[in-house]
């Protein structure tokens, strides 16, 4: 909001540079956003906070400055000269909606000559970026920027019956506003009507039919107090935001109507001629009394942690025009000036004191709170462990928006039903809340691969929103990850490889390990967005955690990825709830272990899991470990089969195993593998 230095000088003496003025105002809560020009021509751009409509004008800023510096404040004069007959003779006024209009003051200026404003007036407005229109309208605008009270000038001859009725709009009524738009009105809207129809939207904007024009002779000036919520609703409903609505919404000064009216009428008579009707009309159907608040200096000291001193506190409040009666010294009875609608309770007065005493004077201290519950919760620890697991595995972390396309949800969570809709999205392709982390990660993978990176390994931990109509969506925290292109680790000593399904499965296993869970279980299933035969459900102790696998080709191609992508998504809540076996120390066996390796040739239909199960079932001796250490397909292995090398470690907790019994166990294993799974030893025929 712009303020002219020269204009401020009309109300307060300023004996310092504009930059210093700006710093002073900033420190008092009127932050300087910009400063143009210098000396008297300086223009301040001040970011006046929402609750200070009293500072959205030059007198208000001057009042703050005067209070800060101790300089006297000069109020503009408003003594209407050249007065004619009573306003009540020139126009009639009725308030039919006293709940929405607490006060309505009006005067007429009869016999004006509408024309260009004199230079001083036009320059004042132009200095703060306002465009002069004509002398009458410019005066109302000038008074708005001087005193802060929004006024409206009607062409009196255009008011049917020379009558003002403040009422709610009637169903079906319309109004063509000053901007030329025809507005449909609803009964929640407060209008200013004449004898027939609405002529203005109260506190928002005037109507074109009663606008001041070159031919206007008689002017009716309105200076009223409209209900803030009503003004705001009307302005919002019509998508309008005017200087008037901005102030009424935030609370105008109910006692300021007459001062603004008199000032404007005098100025109109001065710049456009005419006589002013007197006395004014001034209906107050609902008086708004000044607030009285108890102020305890001790409370201010306790809340601020510093003692500004009682004299200083009193001085600040008085300079800001608060009335103080101190019947008892420890509790003052403070009357709030009518223009300070924001000051409602003691804390507000304490802020007034603090802001003018200066926040800089408040010392620094650290609170000590014995007994506050501290620390991380369980879900935070799960989140950290999952993140560490994947970072350690070489994946980098992504963060995506929670908004996505409905199509994403259809592809990745068809079972969840239609995704949760954002009613006012920024873009139509971000119109719903995500139901999976994978669409975002696939877009990230496409971005990276398309920029020439050889491999992309990313994860994200974030919220998904599952519809639970009619209630609010169910929020779940998940981890998602993708692998595409070159596999990890990358090192000159290692053969290059492409990412594959085992990366996706391994990431889940790594998470399980970092959370110290029992080994996760993986089962093949049909999952809509994963390739058939390359889709796994992940579980812990029978409870589902999520999925892992190769992203279906048609889907990854839709996201612009030309090569295989492997992905997974697990639920952090489920991971947190998964039972972690108690870890206890087991004595390291003192008996020797015996290792045997078997190179098996297996038909393609035989899974490794079946081999391991068989080994464990038939071994007949205690096993310390069964592990696969090589898998090979190619020359030397018949087509339609693969060579699998497994290592079996036998170890009895109490005694040394004899070579013969181990040999017998190996033979039993080989036999069972041949019989049950058709496996044969590599290098052995038949």
């Amino acid at each position, binding site marked *: 909001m712009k303020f002219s230095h020269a204009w401020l000088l009309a109300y307060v003496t300023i004996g310092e540079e504009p930059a210093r003025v700006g710093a002073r105002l900033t*420190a008092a*809560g009127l*932050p300087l956003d910009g400063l143009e020009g210098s000396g008297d021509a300086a223009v301040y751009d001040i970011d006046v*906070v929402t*609750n*200070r409509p009293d500072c959205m004008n030059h007198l208000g800023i001057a009042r703050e400055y005067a209070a800060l510096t101790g300089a006297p404040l000069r109020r503009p004069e408003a003594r209407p000269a050249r007065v004619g007959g009573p306003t009540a003779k020139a126009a009639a006024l009725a308030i039919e909606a006293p709940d929405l209009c607490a006060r309505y003051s009006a005067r007429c200026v009869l016999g004006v000559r509408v024309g260009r404003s004199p230079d001083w007036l036009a320059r004042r407005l132009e200095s703060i970026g306002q465009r002069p229109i004509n002398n009458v309208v410019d005066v109302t605008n000038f008074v708005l920027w001087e005193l802060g009270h929004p006024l409206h000038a009607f062409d009196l001859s255009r008011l049917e019956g020379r009558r003002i009725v403040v009422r709610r709009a009637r169903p079906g009524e319309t109004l063509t506003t000053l901007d030329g738009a025809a507005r449909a009105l609803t009964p929640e809207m407060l209008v200013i009507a004449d004898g027939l129809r609405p002529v203005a939207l109260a506190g928002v904007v005037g109507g074109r039919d009663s606008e001041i024009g070159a031919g206007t002779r008689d002017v009716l000036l309105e200076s009223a107090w409209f209900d803030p919520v009503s003004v*705001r*609703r009307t302005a919002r409903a019509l998508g309008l935001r005017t200087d008037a609505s901005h102030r009424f919404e935030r609370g105008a000064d109910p006692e300021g109507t007459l001062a603004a009216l008199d000032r404007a009428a005098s100025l109109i008579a001065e710049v456009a001629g005419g006589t002013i009707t007197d006395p004014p009309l001034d209906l107050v159907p609902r008086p708004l009394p000044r607030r009285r608040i108890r102020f305890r200096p001790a409370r201010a000291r*306790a*809340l*601020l*942690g510093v003692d500004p001193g009682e004299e200083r506190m009193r001085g600040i409040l008085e300079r800001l025009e608060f009335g103080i009666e101190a019947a008892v010294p420890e509790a003052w009875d403070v009357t709030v000036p009518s223009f300070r609608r924001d000051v409602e*309770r003691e*804390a507000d007065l*304490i*802020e007034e004191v*603090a802001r003018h005493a200066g*926040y*800089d004077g*408040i*010392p*620094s*201290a650290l*609170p000590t709170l014995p*007994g*506050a519950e501290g620390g*991380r*919760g369980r879900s935070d620890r799960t989140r950290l462990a999952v*993140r560490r697991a*994947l970072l*350690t*595995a*070489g994946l*980098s*972390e992504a*963060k995506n928006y*929670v*908004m996505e396309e409905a199509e994403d949800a259809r592809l990745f969570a068809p079972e969840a039903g239609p995704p*949760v*809709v*954002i*009613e*006012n999205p*920024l873009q139509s392709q971000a119109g719903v*809340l995500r139901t999976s982390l994978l669409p975002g990660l696939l877009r990230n993978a496409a*971005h*990276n691969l398309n*920029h020439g*990176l050889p491999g*992309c390994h990313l*994860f994200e931990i974030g919220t998904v*929103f599952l519809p639970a109509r*009619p209630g*609010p969506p169910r*929020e779940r925290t998940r981890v998602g990850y993708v692998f595409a292109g070159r596999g990890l*680790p990358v090192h*000159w000593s290692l053969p290059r490889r492409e990412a594959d399904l085992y990366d996706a499965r391994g990431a889940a296993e790594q998470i399980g390990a970092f959370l110290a869970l029992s080994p996760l279980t993986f089962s093949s299933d049909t999952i809509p967005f994963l390739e058939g035969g390359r889709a796994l459900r992940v579980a812990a102790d029978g409870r589902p955690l999520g999925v892992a696998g190769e992203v279906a080709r048609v889907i990854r191609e839709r996201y612009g990825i030309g090569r295989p992508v492997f992905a997974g998504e697990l639920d952090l809540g489920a991971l947190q709830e998964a039972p972690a076996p108690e870890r206890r120390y087991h004595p390291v066996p003192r008996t020797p272990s015996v290792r045997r390796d078997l190179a098996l040739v297996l038909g393609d239909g035989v899974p490794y899991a079946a081999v391991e199960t068989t080994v464990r079932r038939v071994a007949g001796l205690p096993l310390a470990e069964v592990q696969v250490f090589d898998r090979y397909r190619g020359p030397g292995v018949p087509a339609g089969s693969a060579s699998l090398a497994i290592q079996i470690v036998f170890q009895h907790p109490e005694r040394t195993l004899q070579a013969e019994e181990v040999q017998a166990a190996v033979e039993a294993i080989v036999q069972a593998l041949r019989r049950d799974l058709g496996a044969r030893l590599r*290098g*052995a*025929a038949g």
Partner: protein
Amino acid sequence: VESRVAQIRRQFDRDLAAAEGPTAVEEVRVRYLGRKSGLVTALLRDLRDLPGARRAAAGQAINDLKAHVEAALAAAERSTARGRGQEPEPIDLTLPGRAQRPGHPHPITRVRDLIEEIFLEMGYSLESGPEVETDYYNFEALNLPPHHPARDMQDTFYVEGGVLLRTHTSPVQIRTMESRRPPIKMVALGTVFRRDSDLTHSPVFHQVEGLVVDEGISFAHLKGTLEHFCRRVFDRELSIRLRPSYFPFVEPGAEYDISCIFCGGGGCRRCKGSGYIEMGGAGMVHPAVFERVGYDPERLTGFAFGLGIERIAMLTLGIDDIRLLYENDLRVLSQFPA
């Protein structure tokens, strides 16, 4: 023949494992691959006597065995040679070493971790709340009744069913006060949403919310806490400036700035010559907020503060377009150390 192959293989493995030193390894070589009496050589010789049908399969098995024996001997020779200090294989010491390199955490997470750590050290609890909120928690309980003009400051995304995406982490204040008894000393770090997008505004961003409630908590405590926190986050001496401002849920309200971390307060391009950098909003908990959660505002006082995590990430990492943080370009992410 096949069982003989398996037997010889086992025997070889045992012999080789038992062989210590190059001489012993050489003896094993002669025993198995010796031209005249090597066991594997003999097997190959026997092959000639087999009928054609079985010869192919057996030949395959013997060749596999021979390959195994040769590879194992070669490895054993290499290691015993080194062990004896004989002619070592030359090594290029300038080549990079081998380890699974860790991935890179997102810059926002790095800053978030740092902030969490600072407050955990100060004994704060970490709290959280839903991202889809009700109007009550996001606005009304925070002293922002319907049609309050301050709602304009927070361009809200509305979600079907009469709920919204939280515009700040402040609802967590309310939820925590509702579920706990004072004293309270909490921070909440989380995702928030505003309908705004440009160089410095992202529709999705992250905030920190702090709340301390007890008897005797003052504005001085707020100032001291912010000062300590800002010094720890930026890891340097700096001064803090509080300016009066307006947030409906605090009174007195403030915005807080730090002395510019680029110029030290003298004025530069980054601080637009002011010597200060804006950090966030803060203030003393508004008595109306206490009343909402059933706390007695006469007995209890408290302070609250907020700040944007992106802002700190951008300041400390020198990023000037917030959207870079959401592209997840590995060429960007990998610039920041694990």
